């Protein structure tokens, strides 16, 4: 597997400009002769599809959702970063670049991150022009807030619904192209495979989820914008449909998968309330601005929070990180919460949370002020738990939230399969080993609005338009395989439901490849995942038929892929014998329990090559160099 990142040379500020000049162009009259398939209508997919259609390409879009307006991106609450420096607080493209490289714990590519920071300002312009109703000040100008521990206020937001408003902006732009005839959107369609002939992506195999029809579609380029794989843990903050199928299938066909073990755990989610729990709800990180996190000092203390006197409480983040306190970064806050619960200090009926207490803030600022700041979040919390956070402290616990790993892409966002591109959370992207708050939305839109439409043009200019058709026998083969798999799932006729398998997989991954990992645990996980996969294919029960809407069948296909993918995650976590960012190996910690990086041995992107299900994959390395942001150790003490 050849890993040529195609990073332009020259000073970092000029690389993207230079690259844009060097890329080939497709003439306006020829654009309509080219077809691009886009899978996914989240921020990345919808913005790419709308922009490419507007440029004149023929775009066909597929999504498993029932409308392009509903992708998982819609759930993002907090906001989107941009280096506008509207607050005059010292922000700049360079500072956003610097923060992102450092926040990613030096496991991302400098050139890509710089480009991201550079494009961030264009994103805000574009979204405002589309009518995204960002929060404003009385002057009529845009408002900002600080987010995720950043020292500048560079986050743009639309109440607690930033993802929704940004997605509706892309969705509407895409619907305009549908009306104009350049784009076609097929909803309730699921990708089952990618078709590769002579090493080049030629199209995809899909299932119409309503009729059950399995068919293929060919194009001159294929984009996967299918999001992340946090649902490998079963319980996560992701939408229920989020899955790894598209990227995993591409990986099986030859696309390198990068850093699969880099998964982010968000510190402030509502803890599970029982075995039946189906997903976890994120409470915005902004709550940590005024809430104080604590647990009872004595393990096993079951008194009500109000009955525990001040001096018997442990405000552990304030104690351990006096400088950052309750605002310590995501990975650190998550890990410490887990540690408290593991040591028996957990609170709530299942002893599976820590307190986030607003008592002091309410005393200092008054109830009204708190309601103004967090009213909707408090209401949401009460709806879910039945407890009133104005009276009793909230209970929170970390949950899987975002996956930094994904398909390896070069500077053009092209995977190791020519003609196959990956955008948004689906690629291994710009976040290294840890993503900063409010930067996923930024990355998805930078990829979709500003990068892909140009880099795909460069690819298309080199290929003959319309050369790929579904007449090629490779399409028949891929369809046949996809059908055989559906039939096999229906034919097992076992006794155990798909969800049961998914929950069991989630348990293994959370315990052994979750917030903290060690070699022995990861080896056990590899065995357990293999066993579970075998059991799945022996004992899963999928009722109904393949030729109608069949939600159990859809889930079964996704879980079958997670069961293959999980092994890769464990291999990656095992091979990365260091701690960095969200990847915390218990063997590699500093004396006071922080992650200890090993730059000498591990300053590279791990890129995996598939060899077969159950076979050990091959590790390739893309070395990382840091010319602009000097390697340093993060410290939040």
């Amino acid at each position, binding site marked *: 597997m050849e890993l040529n990142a195609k990073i332009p040379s020259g000073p970092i500020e000029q690389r993207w400009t230079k690259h844009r000049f060097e890329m080939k162009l497709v003439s306006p009259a020829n654009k309509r002769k080219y077809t691009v398939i886009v899978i996914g209508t989240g921020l990345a997919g919808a913005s790419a599809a709308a922009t490419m259609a507007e440029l004149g390409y023929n775009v066909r879009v597929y999504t498993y959702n029932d409308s392009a307006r509903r992708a998982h991106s819609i759930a993002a609450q907090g906001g989107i970063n941009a280096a506008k420096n509207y607050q005059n607080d010292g922000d700049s493209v360079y500072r956003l670049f610097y923060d992102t490289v450092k926040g990613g714990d030096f496991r991302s590519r400098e050139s890509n991150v710089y480009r991201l920071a550079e494009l961030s300002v264009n994103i805000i312009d574009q979204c405002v022009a589309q009518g995204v109703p960002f929060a404003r*000040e009385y002057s009529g100008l845009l408002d900002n807030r600080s987010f995720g521990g950043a020292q500048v206020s560079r986050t743009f937001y639309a109440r607690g*619904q930033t993802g929704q408003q940004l997605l509706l902006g892309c969705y509407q732009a895409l619907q305009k192209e549908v009306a104009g005839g350049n784009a076609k959107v097929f909803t309730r369609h699921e990708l089952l495979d990618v078709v590769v002939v002579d090493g080049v992506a030629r199209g995809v195999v899909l299932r119409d989820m309503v009729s059950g029809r399995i068919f293929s579609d060919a194009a001159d380029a294929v984009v996967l914008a299918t999001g992340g794989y946090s649902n490998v843990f079963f319980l996560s903050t992701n939408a229920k449909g989020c899955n790894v199928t598209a990227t995993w299938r591409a990986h099986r066909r030859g696309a390198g998968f990068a850093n699969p073990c880099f998964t982010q755990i968000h510190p402030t989610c509502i803890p599970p309330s029982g075995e039946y729990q189906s997903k976890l709800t994120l409470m915005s990180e902004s709550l940590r601005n005024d809430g104080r996190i604590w647990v009872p000092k004595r393990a096993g203390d079951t008194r009500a929070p109000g009955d525990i006197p001040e001096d018997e409480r442990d405000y552990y983040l304030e104690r351990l990180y006096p400088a950052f306190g309750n605002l310590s970064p995501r990975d650190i806050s998550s890990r410490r919460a887990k540690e408290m619960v593991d040591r028996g200090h957990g609170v709530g009926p299942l002893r599976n949370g820590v307190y986030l207490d607003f008592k002091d803030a309410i005393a200092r600022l008054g109830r009204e002020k708190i309601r103004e700041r967090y009213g909707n979040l408090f209401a949401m919390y009460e709806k*879910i738990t039945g407890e009133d956070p104005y009276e009793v402290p909230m209970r929170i616990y970390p949950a899987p939230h975002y996956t930094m790993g994904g398909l390896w892409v070069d500077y053009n966002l092209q995977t190791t399969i020519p003609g196959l591109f990956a955008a948004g959370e689906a690629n291994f992207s710009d976040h290294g080993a840890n993503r900063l708050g409010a930067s996923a939305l930024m990355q998805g839109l930078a990829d979709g609005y500003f990068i892909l439409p140009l880099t795909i043009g460069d690819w298309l200019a080199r290929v003959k338009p319309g050369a790929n058709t579904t007449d090629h026998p490779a399409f028949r083969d891929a369809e046949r395989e996809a059908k055989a798999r559906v039939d096999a799932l229906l034919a097992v006729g076992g006794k155990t439901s798909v969800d049961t398998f998914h929950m069991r997989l989630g348990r293994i991954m959370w315990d052994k490849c979750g917030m903290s990992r060690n070699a022995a645990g990861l080896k056990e996980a590899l065995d357990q995942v293999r066993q579970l996969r075998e059991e799945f294919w022996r004992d899963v029960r999928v009722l109904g038929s393949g030729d109608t809407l069949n939600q159990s069948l859809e889930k079964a296909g996704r879980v079958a892929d997670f069961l293959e993918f999980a092994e890769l995650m464990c291999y990656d976590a095992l091979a990365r014998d260091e701690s960095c960012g969200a990847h915390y190996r218990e063997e590699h910690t500093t004396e006071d329990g922080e992650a200890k990086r090993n730059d000498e041995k591990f300053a590279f992107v791990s890129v995996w090559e598939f060899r077969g299900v159950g076979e050990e994959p091959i590790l390739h390395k893309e070395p990382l160099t840091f010319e602009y942001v000097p390697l340093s150790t993060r410290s939040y003490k």
Partner: protein
Amino acid sequence: MEFTLHVWRQSGPAAPGRFETLSVKDISEHMSFLEMLDLVNERLIAEGKEPIAFDHDCREGICGTCGLMINGVPHGPLGLTTACQLHMRHLKGAKEIWVEPWRARAFPVIKDLVVDRSALDRIIQAGGYISVRTGSAPEANSIPVKKIDADMAMDAAICIGCGACVAACPNGSAMLFTAAKVSHLGLLPQGQPERFDRVLSMVEAHDREGFGNCTNHGACQNACPKGISVDFIARLNRDLVKAALTYKPYEITAV
């Protein structure tokens, strides 16, 4: 909790549907409504019966995918809540629970509780956007927007497109949905150039899709999980009248 669940089963768009009655036991009041359905499905699967099909994705009230008539009320009894956010404790004491799909001419049933809402996408295609080419946008702060207008635009923009308004309306009208988009864009300076074209063509698309007329029942506002106000329908009507009476499409004024 323990209750009798009457749930609509329909194997396909053309098949006749019927209520299936299930007796449901051992339900925790902390479960969400959809988790209750998950559990019922697990039990059906264990008995070798096909599970109930229902739509959902985010399970936190923002994607608009879930949509169920619960005891005759869209999204259930709580108010300002989607079905996925409704918890069983809010149905405490209920002996019978009836679950149905959205019923409206423009929303054909696909299976069980799943309906086809693509008509809403086609209303947006008719003009629910601001035409701005990627890359051609002016610097964001060069278009100041009064805070009150921006806030009001946001009040309309928070629509999640779930279709509860249509299901609640005796006429099966999607006017609240349409008005929310017309108002969101029409309240902003960026939305002015296309404002009157937009309202004319979106309302035309609305009618073409088979949604009924708005006769000011106001049931939509009560059913809306995001609390979108019927005042936006009044706003749409004002724009519609203005457009019909005074607005000349570009082709005519250019003569």
